[in-house]
């Protein structure tokens, strides 16, 4: 009976997808930030669920058209870090919860930009702002989100190059 109550309590929390923290938990692992952050912004692990990270890590030899292969020991360490800190384990963070809840059951995202939540959030931005030299693509979080390093993606912190502040 006790476990039933606990289960019900747990279910209500999950269903309400209540979060008490804004943004997403910051990326803290030094090796992850060094290795993955060498070529692009070191995305917080809480921006994708573990199944999506696993899929991405399984093909680092062709990582969005680039060779991002790692030494075995670094691969293992980074995989472990991503799996331990993935979005579905940090549903108390607003962005992690929103991303996870936007995915269909069984859907494994190919990238953060391809999650339904991210597509929806960026759909009204003019194409020329996105493809301009300073930005290059939706993947480049820090180009416009001035507080992305901290895991904060609030509207008030957006500054689009050659445009300015963004208001919905």
């Amino acid at each position, binding site marked *: 009976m006790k476990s039933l109550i606990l289960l019900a309590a747990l279910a209500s929390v999950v269903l309400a997808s209540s979060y008490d923290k804004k943004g997403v938990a910051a990326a803290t692992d030094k090796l992850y930030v060094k290795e993955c952050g060498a070529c*692009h*912004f070191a995305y917080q692990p809480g921006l994708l669920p573990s199944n999506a990270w696993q899929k991405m890590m399984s093909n680092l*030899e062709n990582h969005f058209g*680039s060779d991002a292969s*790692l030494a075995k020991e670094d691969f293992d360490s980074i995989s472990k870090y991503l799996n331990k800190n993935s979005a579905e384990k940090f549903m108390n963070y607003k962005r992690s919860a929103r991303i996870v809840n936007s995915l269909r059951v069984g859907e494994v995202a190919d990238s953060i930009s391809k999650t339904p939540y991210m597509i929806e959030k960026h759909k009204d931005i003019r194409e020329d702002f996105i493809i301009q030299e300073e930005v*290059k693509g939706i993947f*480049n979080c820090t180009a416009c989100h001035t507080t992305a390093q901290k895991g904060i993606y609030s509207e008030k912190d957006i500054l689009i190059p050659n445009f300015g502040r963004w208001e919905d």
Partner: protein
Amino acid sequence: MKLIFALFLFLTISSASVVDEYLNTLTKEAKIENPSFSGFDLKRGEEIFTSKHIGKKGKEVSCVSCHGEDFSKTSKNFFTAKEIEPLSPKANPKRFSEVKTIEKWLRRNFNDVYNREGTTQEKGDVVTYIINK
């Protein structure tokens, strides 16, 4: 201040020995692969670094696309716009200071620009070019 200087000197010396050691290893390999091997060549290295090829992404790129022409300055990744620290060990002592890292980037970047791994001769030539430029 003295300590910082000593540390800097140590890093400079140790990084020089790491890349020299790496080139020695490549030389040994090259001699086994090719009995008429006659050393690594800066000019050939420059050609490898600056010539354009259809890379892994299907776009025409060279090493210069990401690393720029001045190795003492920061540059930008051609595809992601992420800042890349200076490539020259003279400007950036962290460069060529660890064999594991040298090999990682040679493997990745040959694949990215040439769509294949570099040969021993090519790796030696291009490293010789970069560290002497």
